């Protein structure tokens, strides 16, 4: 039997009345994308967890903050998440704890093990890329995350960031340039290390 699909705003109304099933469904629909965005922006699983939890807490405590005339629930949640992320980055621009370094970014262990050396190398590369992304200024980083990692169109990225398409293109252009320089630097270090220079 097919379960009828309910719109997010309907689920939110039901969740506001305390219906756990409705809230759970709403949470399952949106938590992953919000968590991914937060994780890629902060580089910290702990921060991402805290922020996502905070966003849904806001939804539980103040469901009337959502105005259906202003957009969909997903956009509303993303807006709150983005604000929390930006505040987090302002407060601690480069706060990556040692514990975070040992956390797998996906939050899950690899399912298939090729060789320990492969995973060690891959993990090192991922950490270097993460560091390169995190080294970008927040606005450029956001453009890279939305357009390159989330693979959104310019229109979608502009809507999510709340800025014109031209601004997103400009930020992405500068973000790419900085990222290429940073990654080139990493590759240069690796080349020198491998050749022994």
């Amino acid at each position, binding site marked *: 039997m097919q379960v009828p699909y309910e719109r997010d705003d309907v689920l939110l109304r039901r969740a506001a009345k305390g219906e756990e099933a409705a809230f759970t469904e709403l949470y399952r629909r949106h938590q992953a994308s919000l968590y991914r965005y937060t994780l890629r922006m902060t580089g910290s699983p702990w921060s991402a967890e805290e922020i996502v939890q905070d966003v849904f807490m806001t939804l539980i405590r103040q469901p009337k903050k959502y105005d259906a005339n202003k957009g969909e629930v997903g956009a509303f949640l993303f807006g709150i998440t983005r604000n929390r992320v930006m505040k987090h980055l302002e407060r601690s621009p480069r706060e990556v704890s040692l514990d975070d370094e040992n956390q797998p*970014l996906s939050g899950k262990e690899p399912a298939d093990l090729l060789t320990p050396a492969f995973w060690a190398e891959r993990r090192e590369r991922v950490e270097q890329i993460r560091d390169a992304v995190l080294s970008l200024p927040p606005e450029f980083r956001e453009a890279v995350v939305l357009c390159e990692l989330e693979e959104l169109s310019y229109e979608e990225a502009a809507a999510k960031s709340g800025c014109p398409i031209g601004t997103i293109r400009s930020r992405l252009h500068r973000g790419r340039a900085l990222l290429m320089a940073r*990654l080139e630097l990493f590759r240069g270090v690796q080349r020198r290390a491998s050749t022994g220079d």
Partner: protein
Amino acid sequence: MNCEEFQSIGLDVGTRRITPEEQAEAATHASTCAKCAALADSWDAARGELAVFADATRSAEAPARVQMRLLQELRAQKRPHLVYRRGGVIAAWGLAAAAAIVAIVSWQSWHSKEKPPQTRINLPAVNVSLEQSSAAEAVLIADEDTGNFTPLPGALPIDSDTGAVYEVRMQRASLGALGLPVNEEGASDWINVDLLVADDGTPQGVRLHEDASQSAPVQ
């Protein structure tokens, strides 16, 4: 396509963001411009790196404990509502009961003022006559002389041993309070009457003195 245009859209080659025609133009330009070709190569390498990073985080989800905490919060938010609602219902019933009690007590109080006690209803003549004759002088004439008394309306035949006769000076209008008809012309006249009173204090009969009966006889 020139170098400036290539820097603007050339790095979007291989994505949905530019049209196939623009992709073809960018590829043509890169094949003729070494600087732009180097930029494209550098970006291809960076994009490959980013793809690795994207893959590493593609399946990332908030840990299950977040959902558990949120559901706990949802239950905690729901509970006060129920408590408040239950408290509200109890308070409403309490107020309603209190209002009903106050209404009943008020009504009974008002009703008792509207209707004087039964004993007072039965004795209007006595009260009125005694009040109106309070200024008058009452003199006990005899305990046994009960002859020639006009019985008051509703009075029972009285035994002469139990009754008492008082001489009372009163206004003629007071006879009306005892249930006797009074001529309005002499209603304010002062007269002397003998009042036959039973042991319980209720007047049973009245006897006018001769002078009073001559001046304004009881009709």
